């Protein structure tokens, strides 16, 4: 006799991905959930610290690099004795020092001409698309340079394009006038260099240009020595000085270019040095002590502290300037201040001794810039190395966090599957219970003639 049938067991869900919890699901899974959270929060806390250090290191790098530059520039200025070039008549000649190393004076007279650019225009107009050459062969002469042209397109635009493509120091353009289209050529730089354009160079050889401006060289005398230059900007005659000719002068009106130490340049460089020193000092202070930032205890901060002390305490045993205080730079706590009044009162001898005290970019006070550069060098510097290490640590931590997060996601997926499986088993059990109850009712009825079961 059969009173009821149960749901076939083959409808149960397969337990994909949960076998790892099969032995002791409850204990293992609950523990896994708890444990999974701990390392991720720890890793995130570590990474947060690393990122703070990286940010602080980046800020420090900028300030330290600026300080190294200011100290090196101060040394370079001192090595060149802060020389400045001045002209007795800036309306006719201007001058700048570009690295002069000693004071001097130069006389310029007889500026009989200043340099100008040459230009030329075609002797006649051309039809917009008509031929410009009788043979298609032309020769462009710029000064003593001959440049053959075989026209690809024998018209004005074709000629313009080919001349400009030559790159021989002249620019071609087309003038569109009421009289027609003319070719115009202009030299790209000053100097006496005639511009000619010959048609049919192996035959008629006709120059189709007429000179608009001949172009000229600059002509002058320096300390009585005649000189001719193609440009008005002269930078290869007086070492470390560039002067520019602006107008002509008679021989009886000499001009003077003077190279002399300019204390204002030194003053400005010292002020920059003080400002950048104080910026770095403030950075160091912010990363020191119990209330310090993310770099407290970092070797870079310690090295910076030592370098700043070395610079602030630098002394020389000779001359009238032996310490920073002799230049008007004094300490207020660990902050430097520059007294302009004290500096302005320095004598010529003291200014000269100041250059000796500062030295150069590689010696004296300026030479100490190397100890700062060792920290701030973008490739080999300690800060760059530390930053690279922090970046790598951040990367590693991020990788670990990603892996842990993925593990948690997998765990959650597993939980979902577990829940679904438990759900399915519960439904199966319910079916079985209904089946058993039906069977029990059937048996009760058969044996006792009544249904005595309650479920």
């Amino acid at each position, binding site marked *: 006799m059969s009173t009821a049938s149960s749901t076939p067991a083959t409808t149960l869900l397969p337990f994909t991905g949960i076998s790892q919890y099969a032995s002791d699901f409850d204990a293992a899974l609950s523990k896994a959930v708890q444990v999974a959270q701990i390392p*991720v929060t720890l890793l995130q806390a570590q990474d947060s610290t690393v990122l703070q250090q990286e940010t602080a290191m980046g800020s420090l790098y900028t300030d330290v690099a600026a300080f190294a530059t200011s100290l090196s520039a101060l040394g370079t200025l001192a090595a060149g004795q802060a020389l400045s070039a001045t002209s007795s008549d800036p309306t006719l000649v201007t001058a700048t020092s570009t690295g002069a190393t000693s004071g001097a004076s130069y006389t310029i007279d007889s500026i009989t001409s200043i340099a100008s650019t040459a230009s030329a225009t075609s002797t006649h107009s051309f039809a917009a698309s008509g031929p410009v050459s009788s043979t298609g062969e032309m020769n462009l002469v710029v000064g003593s340079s001959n440049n053959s042209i075989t026209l690809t397109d024998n018209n004005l635009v074709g000629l313009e394009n080919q001349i400009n493509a030559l790159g021989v120091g002249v620019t071609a353009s087309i003038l569109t006038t009421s009289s027609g289209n003319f070719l115009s050529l202009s030299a790209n730089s000053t100097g006496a260099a005639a511009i000619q354009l010959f048609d049919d160079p192996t035959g008629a050889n006709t120059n189709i240009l007429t000179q608009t401006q001949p172009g000229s060289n600059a002509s002058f005398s320096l300390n009585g020595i005649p000189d001719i230059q193609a440009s008005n900007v002269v930078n290869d005659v007086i070492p470390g000085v560039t002067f520019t000719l602006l107008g002509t002068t008679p021989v009886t009106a000499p001009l003077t270019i003077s190279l002399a130490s300019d204390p204002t340049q030194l003053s400005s460089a010292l002020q920059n040095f003080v400002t950048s020193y104080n910026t770095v000092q403030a950075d160091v202070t912010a990363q020191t002590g119990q209330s310090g930032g993310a770099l407290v205890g970092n070797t870079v901060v310690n090295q910076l502290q030592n370098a700043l002390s070395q610079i602030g305490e630098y002394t020389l045993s000779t001359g009238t300037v032996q310490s920073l205080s002799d230049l008007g730079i004094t300490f207020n706590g660990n902050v430097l201040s520059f007294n302009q009044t004290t500096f302005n009162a320095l004598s010529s001898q003291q200014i000269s001794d100041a250059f000796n005290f500062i030295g150069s970019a590689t010696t004296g006070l300026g030479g100490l810039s190397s100890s700062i550069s060792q920290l701030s060098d973008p490739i080999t510097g300690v800060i760059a190395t530390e930053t690279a290490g922090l970046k790598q640590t951040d990367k590693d931590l991020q990788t670990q966090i990603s892996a842990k997060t993925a593990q948690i996601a997998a765990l959650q997926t597993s939980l979902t599957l577990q829940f679904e499986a438990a759900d399915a088993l519960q439904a199966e059990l319910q079916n079985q219970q209904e089946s058993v109850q039906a069977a029990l009712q059937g048996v009760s009825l058969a044996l006792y003639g009544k249904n005595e079961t309650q479920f």
Partner: protein
Amino acid sequence: MTLEQSGLAALHAAGSGNLVELRDALLARSEAIARINAAEPSPEVHARLATALEIGQAIRDQIRSLKVRVAADGARLSQFRNYLR
């Protein structure tokens, strides 16, 4: 397995949270129910079915408890994942 054996095995598996064992035990129990349904009615069959019904209730309680724990763990993980974002 008999109806009693498979029922007790399912109860043990549900109590320990072992869903694989629970699935196997319920499969065996399903087969045992089918077998007893084919048997002639008797006081013994009546008693076995009544016992099976009680064991089934106990299994159901264990599965419910298990689902509550799984749901709680899932919620905890969801909360943690949101915190990580």
